[in-house]
Structure formats: C-alpha cells, structure tokens
C-alpha cells in the first residue's frame, strides 16, 4: 500500500508510483511529464479571464493527501452500506462502478452488455490490461497542461472510469459511476472517459457524493468522444458535502451527426467550479447542455461553458438555471463560437437565476464569437433577480403562504429543465435534491 503522505511533491509522486497495482507501467512517462507541468504552471490567477471569479491564490494544495486506499469488494454485498446509500435509487442499470476514496472498489457490467463488446472498467485496470484503448482518449480532449489542476490530475489520478461502446451497439440501461469520499483532507481525481463508436448509444451517470468534511479536493475530468451518428446522454450529479472544493473540466468531441445531451446538477461542495465544453467538429452534430444549481450558506459556484461550432449544420442548445440563497454566489459565463467555414449553425444559450435572499448573488456573462460569414441562428438570454412579485402575490392571494409559494415558484423554475430530463430516476433524484435544498434552514445574513 503506497504511503503518499501529504501534499503533491516529488516524494509523494514516487511513493504512489512504487505502489502495487498502480498503473505506472504504461502511463509512467506521461505522469512524469504531467508532474513537471504541475510544478511549472502557477496557481490560476484571478487576473485571467478564466479564473476571474474564483480566487485560489490562498488555496493550500500541500495540505491535502494524494491517496487513500480502500479494500476492493468482490460483490455488491461487500460494499459498505453508506456507499450503497449514496448510489441512490437509480433504477435498473447496465453497470455500476464505485470508487471509494482513491480506490475503485467494485466495477460491474451486465453480462449482456459485455457480450455486445462494451468495455466498462476502472481507468487503472484499462491502463494495465488494454492500454491501447486509452491512446488518443486519456487527456486528449482535456490535455494535462490546460491548467495547474489538470496537470495535478494527470500526475496523481487514481481510479476513474473508462467506457467504450463498439459501433452500432445500443446500451439500453444507464451505466453509473459513483465517487464517494469520506476521508477528511483527501484529494480525489474523478475521471470518466466515455467513447462511443459510430452509431453507438449510451446513458452514463456520474455521481460525486461525500458527507460534510473539514476539507477535501475533487479535481475532476470528463472526456467524451461521440463517434459518427452516436447518441450519448451524460448526467453528472455533484453532491459533495460541505468543505469540498470541486474543480472540474468536461469536454465532449462530437463527430458527424453525433448527439450529446448533458445534464450537470451542482448542489454540493463549498466551492464548485465546473467547465463544460462541446466541440461540434462533425457536420450535423447536436449538443444539448442542461445545468441546474442551487446555492445555500456560503457556497460559491463558477460555471463556464463553451459551445464551439466547427462543423456545418451543427446545433447547440444550452440552458443553465440556478437558485441562490443565503450568502451564496454564482457566476455563469458561457461562450458560443461559430468558426469560419461553419455553415447553417444554430446556437442558443440561456442562463437564468433566482435570488431567494438579498445577500445571495448571481452573475451571468454570455459571449458570442461569430467568425463565420454565413448567416447563423444564435440567441442568448440571461436573467438574475428575485422571485417575481406579481407571481408571489398571485399565489398568496390564493391562500398559499409565502414559504409554500416560494417552493412552488422554485420547482416551477426548474421544471423547464426537468421537462427535458428523460430518465425518470434522474428526474426523481433531482426533484428530491431540490426539495432537500428548500428544506434546509435558511442562514441568518
């Protein structure tokens, strides 16, 4: 069992690499390079546009632990009850992978899906057994040198999930990956690589869960490769407890006629910064990006998105909706890019925020970069404000007390997103999460 100790110095790295069952073999050189990048790249500066809204200059990386091993489980019956509870009611699924702290403790794929050639395993396993599957996929969409945190991730990642669906294979039920952290002071590196070949279909749910912790870091990467005419639904449920700093980058590459629909739910963490990007390279590809966030207490959310249209006749539609309460604050900044030579594109971007207290804040920063000379259909809309007074009066005039009126309005506000969620289990889990947030005691300002 490797003893990485505290912090992300060379000694910690060497200790990890020496560990048994670690994927150092095929990825050693790559990790070495990432470590060098990590050491060379400074902490993100709030003076740059990308990090203007999240200041990490005081963030003490050296106080985190790089690794915490847990015992693998042979069957689901051997998995700790807390973890199973965290997996939640997701209905029938084609496969489940559970990472507990730094170890993927179980990864199960329905034999029927396996027989069709679907691969679903931890990244560590794949690096050992079929490293060729990772070529041009692991850290291709999200390169290690993108930021100090992606470099840290590339050097120190353990666990993670890899999915590959062969051409023409449709996986009817969702695959789910849970990352569960209950070790105070730990840094985890959730990583999902999802690759769909031509005509493949898949639904994948990533879920991040922890109890409230003193301090933890989640440095996450999601890489999506949607082959020609493939269909992917990707859901990420960020339900970290208080004390967790969550920094994630999700990037999808869409080939010809591919369709990728993503839903990002961010209710947890003390600080949550999530970048989501769709690169619509293939002609006729379609991207839908839905986002829902709910801030309470002193939560800080920084959501960034890019809808990058390279191919012609590509469509993208983004809808992020957030409710902020207490002293929480949220920033959404999104960019739509229509590249030169991209013809007949549609791009829509909408961000709406409701503030439930005078001390909560939200900012919305939309950007359009149209480099194509061709006419494009683009639209963006943003709003920030309290619950509409006329709506409140209308509800109250029907006898509905203020708290109940506010609850109805908030559910109604999120309904526009819920109406576009097709998986009943995800819809149910989202509804329960909204209800739980609303039931939290408001904090005194």
């Amino acid at each position, binding site marked *: 069992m490797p003893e990485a100790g505290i912090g992300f110095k060379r000694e910690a790295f060497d200790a990890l690499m020496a560990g048994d069952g670690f994927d150092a073999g095929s990825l050693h050189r790559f990790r070495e390079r990432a470590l060098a990048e990590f050491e060379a790249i400074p902490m993100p500066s709030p003076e740059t546009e990308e990090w203007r809204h999240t200041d990490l200059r005081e963030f003490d990386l050296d106080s985190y632990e790089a690794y915490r091993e847990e015992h693998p489980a042979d069957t689901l019956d051997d998995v700790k009850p807390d973890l199973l509870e965290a997996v939640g009611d997701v209905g029938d699924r084609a496969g489940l992978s559970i990472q507990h702290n730094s170890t993927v403790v179980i990864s199960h794929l329905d034999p029927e899906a396996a027989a069709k050639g679907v691969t679903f395993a931890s990244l560590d396993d794949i690096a050992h057994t079929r490293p060729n599957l990772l070529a041009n996929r692991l850290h291709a969409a999200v390169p290690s040198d993108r930021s100090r945190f992606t470099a840290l991730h590339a050097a120190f990642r353990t666990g993670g999930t890899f999915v590959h669906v062969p051409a023409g294979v449709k996986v009817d039920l969702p695959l789910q990956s849970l990352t569960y952290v209950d070790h105070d002071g730990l840094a985890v590196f959730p990583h999902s690589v999802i690759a769909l070949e031509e005509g493949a279909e898949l639904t994948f749910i990533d879920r991040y869960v922890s109890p409230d912790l003193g301090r933890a870091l989640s440095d996450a990467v999601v890489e999506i490769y949607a082959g020609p005419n493939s269909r992917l639904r990707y859901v990420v449920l960020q339900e970290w407890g208080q004390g967790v700093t969550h920094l994630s980058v999700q990037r999808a590459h869409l080939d010809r006629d591919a369709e990728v629909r993503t839903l990002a739910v961010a209710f947890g963490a003390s600080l949550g910064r999530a970048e989501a990007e769709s690169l619509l390279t293939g002609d006729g590809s379609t991207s839908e990006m839905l986002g829902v966030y709910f801030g309470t207490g002193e939560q800080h959310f920084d959501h960034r998105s890019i809808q990058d249209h390279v191919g012609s006749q590509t469509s993208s539609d983004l809808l992020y909706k957030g409710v902020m309460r207490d002293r929480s604050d949220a920033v959404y900044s999104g960019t739509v890019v229509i590249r030169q030579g991209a013809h007949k594109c549609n791009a829509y971007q909408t961000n709406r925020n409701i503030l439930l207290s005078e001390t909560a804040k939200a900012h919305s920063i939309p950007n359009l970069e149209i480099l194509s000379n061709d006419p494009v259909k683009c639209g963006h809309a943003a709003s920030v404000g309290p619950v509409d007074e006329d709506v409140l009066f*209308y509800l109250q005039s*029907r006898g509905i007390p203020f708290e*109940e009126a506010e609850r109805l309005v908030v559910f109604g506000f999120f309904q526009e997103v819920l109406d576009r969620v097709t998986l009943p289990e995800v819809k149910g889990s989202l509804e329960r999460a909204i209800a739980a947030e609303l039931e939290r005691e408001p904090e005194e300002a």
Partner: protein
Amino acid sequence: MATETLEKKTDTATLEVRGLHASVEGKEILKGIDLVVPQGEVHAIMGPNGSGKSTLANVIMGRPSYTVTAGQIVFKGQEITKLRPDQRAQLGLFLAFQYPTEIPGVSVVNFLRSAYTSVKGEKVSALAFRKRLKEKMAMLGVEDQMVARYVNQGFSGGEKKKNEVLQLAVLEPDIAILDETDSGLDIDSLKAVAEGIQRLIGPDLGVLLITHYQRILNYITPDRIHVMMDGRIVLSGGPELAHELEQKGYEGFRSDLGLEPAPKETAKGGPA
C-alpha cells in the same frame, strides 16, 4: 350603518370597507371608499377607466405595492387591513385578477391543490382532489388539457379568465372580487365565463363585480350597483342604475352629479 350590519349578522361573512384611502407610488388613488358586501349578494362597481376600481380590488386583497393611508377593511367582523394576502384568502376572500399572472413550470392542478390545501387547512389526497376538480371542471366546461398546462402560460384571454373562475369554484370563498373578469373576451368567451360565475352565485357567495362595461350585466343581475369616479363611490342604487348609465354614459353622470369633467391624462387603464 356599517357597524349595525356587523352586529346583526355575525354569521354571515360580510366584507366592509370603511373610509378607505390608498395610494400607489405616493399617488392617492382611493379617496375615501365606504362599501358593504354581505355574503349572498352581488354588488357591481362600475366606473370609467382610471377611477380606481382595480386599485380597490387589489387593496382589499392586500397587494404589497399598494399602501392604505386611512380607513379600514373589515371581513367577518375582523379587521384585515394589515393581514397578508394569504391570510385574507384563508379567511374566505378571493380576487379574480384582471390580468392573471403566468407561473412558469407550475401546473394548474398542482397550483390549485396547493391553494385548496392552504385555504381549507386540511391535506387532501391527490385522488380526492382530482375528483373534486373534475366536478367543477364539468360544471364550468373546462377541458382536461387546460389544468395540465402551466398556470396561464400560453393561455388565450378566454382561458385565463376561465381559469380564474375555475379557481373561484374550487376554493369556495365567502366573498369574491371579480376584477374586470369580462374584459378582453369575445362574445362566446364572455358568455361562457359569465354563465360560470352565474352558476356559482348563491347564498354562500358574495360578489363584488368590478366592470367597465354593462354587457356582463346581461348575464348577471346585481343586487346593488355602485358608480365609482375619481377614487370615490359617487352613487349607489339598484340594478336599474345600469340602464341609466348605459344611456347617459359616465360623463353624463358627472354633470348630473355636478362633478368636474374627467382629466384627460387619467383616462388610462388602471394598474394591473
């Protein structure tokens, strides 16, 4: 007279407005209104645009942007001037809005169930509520699809007003204020809405019918008619007053009563 009514009929849910003054954004709109509407009676308030009819409706219901500067609103013997709108509704008051508000993402059926639970003070099962709602829908000729839609979103003018009447039917208030429920409707919708209201009128419901036009009175015969001008009730009488108004017009009434002609700039639609 007002106090007398109250003492005599403690069992009936009487709405009383006494010397009511109210302003919006610092501008006085109601300049001393006295009015008594007992349960079981229909009172119509008629008056030109800008006379303060809608303001009166909103002030009685407790809209926060309106300030009562003097006077009282008494309902069921209790002063309600400082109560929140939801408390007034729970006591048995209802306001049908002139411009019903859209509530994105909240279906009519969920909205109504929540309102019903709040007003009746008892939990009702989804099934029992559905049954009750179905009865009222059948009575008013409301189609199933309407209650599944989000409140007032994409509703036609007629559907919005029908939805107000449906709420009135389900919530069963003691006194309902109908704020220009007849406005913005074509003849067929007006007929449907007015007939719906007519079905609900009875000994258990008092109505304060606010209207600009006489045409809804072809369907609903009020017990009393009050003519409102410049923030005051200038004349009250029986149903025959409507015909007189029809013939003379509001301006004719003005000169009869020796009032100043209406200032031009106030001849605008009342606040929503």
